[in-house]
């Protein structure tokens, strides 16, 4: 009987996951339907526009890879929001954490000139992650020690990060008119997929040639992002650390009674969240731009909030949230080529966020009603 119960419960679990997934999917469909109205305002055909959107995101192998490329920083900033959220914290600071990580990695990428790749690259990435982690950990520490509201402190640290890295850092370090730090050494660069066919090791793969297209921009940070999501999932649901984080997130009084230090959990989630945001920045610097560049943050920190919410702040869900926004970004480009103004593309993205958020409320309502019916 026990076995049956467990199986039933697993099934319930799967069912509830499917419901969540279905609700996210539904909200996307509804958003696209409402988007038709806005496309019509621009005298374009919605059919052409959505065809372009689809083609741009998934129309060819390289388009798909570029969708993955665009989703990489979004997955990571999504995780940077999702993890602290599980411990009851709102991390608005992924933007600043990403900038600090990108800047630190970018600098580490060019100041060490004689390191072998297998040391230089991991070192640069770790430095980037550490910079992000410290930038996230600081508001976590302030929250734990003094109860400072993390929303305010992370927003303030965003401004400081912009001033520190872009306004001061780049101007101090740049060697050309390009608003960027000097280009990184090849030894610090993340492997780009388009280089695979000519790569001494990876080029030996039998299918290496499929990456022969200079338009492919995907690099290894995507793989790191997926690994990061899996690690965070593991931490959150399989370790005592994650157990404590979730306990604090649900009920910090109860957690405290259970001998858990809420402040410590809060600090650790913010530290880890900052680290993944830092990895997003490091990836952009070491994989996409090959230097720390002004404007490379592109609002990823804030889009990450939407990504996390679409993914139900579940680390694996965040991967899908990131892919969705990556696809919208990548396909949106093609939509622009088809004559739809970029503002409309932005509107459609905003609609997706809007409907995901409102359908979350629907879900809560459904659950409330179910509880009302089921429990005396």
């Amino acid at each position: 009987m026990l076995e049956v119960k467990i199986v039933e419960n697993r099934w319930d679990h799967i069912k509830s996951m499917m419901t969540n997934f279905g609700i996210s999917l539904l909200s996307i469909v509804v958003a696209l339907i409402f988007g038709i109205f806005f496309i019509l305002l621009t005298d374009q055909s919605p059919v052409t526009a959505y065809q372009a959107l689809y083609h741009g995101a998934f129309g060819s192998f390289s388009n798909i890879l570029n969708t993955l490329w665009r989703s990489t920083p979004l997955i990571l900033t999504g995780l940077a929001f999702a993890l602290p959220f599980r411990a009851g914290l709102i991390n608005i600071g992924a933007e600043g954490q990403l900038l600090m990580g990108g800047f630190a990695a970018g600098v580490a990428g060019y100041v060490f000139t004689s390191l072998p790749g297998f040391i230089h690259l991991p070192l640069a990435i770790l430095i980037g992650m550490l910079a992000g982690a410290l930038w996230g950990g600081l508001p976590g520490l302030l929250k734990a020690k003094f109860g400072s509201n993390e929303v305010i402190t992370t927003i303030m640290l965003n401004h400081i990060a912009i001033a520190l890295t872009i306004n001061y850092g780049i101007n101090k370090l740049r060697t050309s008119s390009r608003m960027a730090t000097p280009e990184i050494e090849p030894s610090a660069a993340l492997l780009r997929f388009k280089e695979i066919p000519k790569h001494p090791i990876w080029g030996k793969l039998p299918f290496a040639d499929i990456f022969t297209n200079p338009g492919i921009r995907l690099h290894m940070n995507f793989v790191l992002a997926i690994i990061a999501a899996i690690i965070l999932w593991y931490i959150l649901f399989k370790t005592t650390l994650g157990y404590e984080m979730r306990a604090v997130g649900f009920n910090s009084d109860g957690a405290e009674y259970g001998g858990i230090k809420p402040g410590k959990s809060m600090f650790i989630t913010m530290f880890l969240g900052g680290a993944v945001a830092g990895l997003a920045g490091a990836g952009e610097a070491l994989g996409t731009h090959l230097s720390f560049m002004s404007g490379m943050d592109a609002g990823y920190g804030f889009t990450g909030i939407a990504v996390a919410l679409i993914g139900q702040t579940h680390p694996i869900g965040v991967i899908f949230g990131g892919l969705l926004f990556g696809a919208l970004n990548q396909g949106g480009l093609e939509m622009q080529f088809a004559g739809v103004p970029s503002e409309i593309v932005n509107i459609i993205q905003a609609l997706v966020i809007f409907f995901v958020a409102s359908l979350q409320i629907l879900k809560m309502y459904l659950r409330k009603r179910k509880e009302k019916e089921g429990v005396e």
Partner: protein
Amino acid sequence: MSREENYILEMNNITKLFPGVKANDNVNFSVKKGEIHALVGENGAGKTTLMKVLYGLYDKDNGEIFYNGEKVNLKGPQDAIDLGIGMVHQHFMLVDPLTVTENIVLGNEPRSGIILNQKKAKDKVKEISEKYGLYVDPEAEIRDISVGMQQRAEIIKTLYRGAELLIFDEPTAVLTPQEIDELFEIFKSLKEQGKTIVFITHKLQEVKAISDRITVLRNGKSVDTVDTEDVTEEDVAELMVGRQVLLEVEKTEANPGKKIFEVNNLKVSDNRDIPAVRGVSLTVRKGEILGIAGVEGNGQTELVEALTGIRKIESGKVKVRDKDITKFDAREIKRESVAHIPEDRQKRGLIMDFNLQENVILGYHDLEPFSRNGIMKYNNIADYTQKLIDEFDIRGGGMEAKAKNLSGGNQQKLIVAREFSQDPEFLIASQPTRGVDVGSIEFIHKQIIERRDNGAGVLLLSADLSEVLSLSDRIAVIFEGEIVDVLDASETDERELGKLMTGSTIDAGGEDSGK
């Protein structure tokens, strides 16, 4: 069918289905005009469901309702209110920042034009409160007044809306003993004025003390309706549970051993930084239960929080087995084999959104076999949880169910299961049976006694004097943060304790703390 004239309410063959459960199964429930009628039953027996059907909050699947002899069909609370049925919910439906008056007239405001006529509203509230002896400051904001006062505001609200039949859903669960006495006075005065009262409870003493008739529900069915004067508390308990229940705690003489827990001149402040515990000294020996009696708010909460490492100790010493634990945090204290049943199970005792597995290891999650090197061992946790569910008879959906979906009694059993299964040498039990049904109370009391007999020391705090008296071997009385006396439980009674608790006859003696 013949209708007797004097029935204000008749509910016949009410059935209400929820997915998988018959919450009400052919329930019959009749109330005479002008009586106080107690509706009793264990948690989950269907009391609240029946009242929600009556109040129009649930649609019934079958059955008929007659009000004043006429068949009625209630579509929602407004229909019930229009008929003259008022409900005082367990969790008050009040708006915190508004005043008592504003809350009472809310939704039905006397106006001059479009503006609320404050004077008229106040007069009306005053009129009602004087008529029924419901004294409450009409201008006070809800958030500033006590729970008892808030309840009065709720009662006035239902009367203001013209209620003739008042339903109270566990009205005493949130009240102190004094407030309960006052509430019963209000009941009497309402009855004198011709109102009819239905109150839901599972406290048998209250049923005996105030009701005229009793209807008992068990497993969704109406078992019996009896005249209160014809039955004893034991009879009612048996009807509720379906078997004989021991209301009296059965225990043998204590056999105290060595000193296990010692508190020396402990001082603790409350959230507003005002001294709440002012120099408490206590000793508990192995194999004895030391009860602490006191009116709530005399420092008990702060005392327990300090002893369990949740609240900062200003000065004084706490020792377990002669080991100084004054500076220990909550986790370190647990590791000294000190278990704790907290007074507020929803706020402290459980993570309501965690399932049973995750709750049953709270505080012990970093110990083997539940985890190793920081990795949770969910297989071991599942086995352990199942063992506890069976052993402590925790009902409500199995180990994957969330704690919030359990009834209060089962939530409390879950906490008891968790804390007792670690085989503690010292146990701090704070309100261990608050809001718990008779069957669970019996079970929890037995467990506490069993711990004692196995040689554990127990510190018991309860607002329920009879619980303190029946469980404890010695009783310390706390008043305004000080222990005013320590008595042998067999040589004292409620009367003496009541006097000590209110500080009425005792000069606080000893040091002159405070101003």
